[in-house]
């Protein structure tokens, strides 16, 4: 059996092929990397109108139990108890060393929590939750597709099918009946644009997708443009920019840890790696994830070593993501550098094919975000 045979497919596989997608292996799935429009135009279309992404490979999980929010707080450094009903927040599963096992979305849907986790981590996440959250029922949702509709026209497009979607604000979640069965909506995404993530029953997924694609504003968008969109928005790709050996403070994700879980807070500590993570909140970390803008047009890709000068022999950091940004019309990267080189404006050099190319530490996002607050 070849590796190709082991790859899973989402329920929309046949539609992707029909639309002319180029399919590639990603996190154990055969996924569309681009459609005939091409990565550059798909990216720009999402920023200018609306892009539709199949993200059904991601894990959808429901947590039920006595007090699932309090239970979940034992394995994430977020305040889940304070998350209001109908709201969602970004979270992290941490390990005992303070590293990141996965990043996820946590939604409070009243009597239960709804989580969306990364495709490549979902089996490990589910095992981790089942082992750690013994008072909770961990229900894996495997009969629903997950779509992301992103861009300034996302609201107009989705509201034609689901009028109530227009009333939602950034990070609101809702469950609603529709012509396509019960939809689970959140006003969020991973492109820096306004938009929605929509969980739709498998039986209706293709019809729902076709209904959106029939609209003038909506084009199907592949993983290639998803990567350049999230990078322009300064968002981390799990496995590249964050992972088991990067802590939330090193990853510049301080904003994702609420005060109440930090030293002095009412529910401080009590999550894996708390000692290291909370100490880094007080004292800082030795390295930091930063934005990087290379000079010229050549992208500085993941794995590029970073140096403080043309002559320096020891790298002070490494690029973890790098691509050309179609909206900013220049290459962009993110990576880790030692803390003394992390200040915005610091001039560094990246080793590109044996040549030291100038690159500057820059503020993120590279392209302004457009969330509907």
């Amino acid at each position, binding site marked *: 059996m070849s590796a190709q045979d082991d790859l899973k497919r989402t329920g929309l596989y046949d539609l992707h092929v029909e639309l002319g997608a180029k399919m590639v292996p990603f996190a154990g799935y055969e996924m569309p990397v681009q459609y005939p429009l091409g990565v550059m135009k798909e990216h720009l279309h999402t920023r200018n109108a609306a892009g539709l992404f199949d993200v059904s490979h991601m894990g959808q999980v429901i947590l039920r139990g006595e007090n699932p929010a309090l239970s979940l707080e034992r394995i994430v450094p977020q305040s889940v108890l304070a998350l209001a009903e109908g709201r969602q927040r970004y979270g992290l599963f941490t390990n005992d060393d303070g590293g990141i096992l996965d990043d996820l979305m946590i939604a409070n849907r009243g009597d239960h929590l709804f989580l969306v986790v990364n495709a490549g981590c979902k089996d490990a996440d589910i095992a981790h939750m089942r082992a750690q959250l013994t008072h909770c029922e961990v229900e894996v949702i495997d009969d629903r597709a997950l779509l992301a509709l992103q861009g300034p026209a996302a609201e107009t497009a989705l509201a034609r099918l689901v009028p109530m979607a227009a009333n939602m604000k950034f990070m609101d979640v809702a469950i609603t009946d529709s012509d396509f069965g019960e939809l689970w909506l959140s006003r969020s995404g991973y492109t820096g644009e306004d938009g929605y993530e929509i969980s739709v029953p498998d039986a209706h997924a293709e019809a729902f997708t076709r209904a959106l694609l029939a609209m003038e504003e909506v084009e199907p968008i592949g993983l290639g443009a998803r990567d350049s969109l999230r990078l322009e928005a300064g968002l981390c790709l799990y496995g590249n920019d964050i992972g088991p050996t990067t802590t939330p403070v090193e990853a510049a994700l301080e904003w994702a840890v609420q005060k109440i879980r930090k030293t002095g807070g009412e529910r401080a500590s009590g999550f894996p790696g708390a000692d290291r993570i909370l100490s880094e909140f007080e004292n800082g970390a030795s390295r930091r994830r930063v934005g990087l803008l290379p000079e010229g047009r*050549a992208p500085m890709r993941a794995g590029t070593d970073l140096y403080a000068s043309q002559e320096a022999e020891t790298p002070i950091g490494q690029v973890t993501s790098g691509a*050309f940004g179609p909206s900013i019309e220049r290459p962009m990267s993110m990576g880790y550098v030692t803390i003394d080189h992390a200040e915005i404006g610091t001039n560094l050099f990246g080793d590109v094919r044996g040549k030291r190319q100038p690159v500057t530490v820059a503020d993120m996002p590279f392209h302004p975000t457009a969330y509907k607050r």
Partner: protein
Amino acid sequence: MKYTEEHEWLREEDGVYVVGITIHAAEQLGDVVFVELPDVGDTVSKDDEIIVIESVKAASDILSPLDGEITEVNTPIADEPTKINEDAEGDGWLFKIKTTDASPLDDFMDEAAYKKFIG
């Protein structure tokens, strides 16, 4: 027009060879975002990596199909690399080379053979 297994094309013009990548290669690369061209006057050998093309997907090395000297490079594509996607076998040409050994040409494919080669 001759084609190589490395998906380059060559066209003879006033005693030099104009070289570019094929339409098929450009389609496979996806949107090109950056091209690093050699310098005019460079002496190169067959199979030297003389150009880097970065697309939205990855960096690809372009090999010299012949021994010789670079006599001209298509400077405008450095600023407008998408020309390679738009017209790979025309305005998207890469460089001109004056060869000292034209014998590899005998092994290169004609259009029909190349079409067969890419299936």
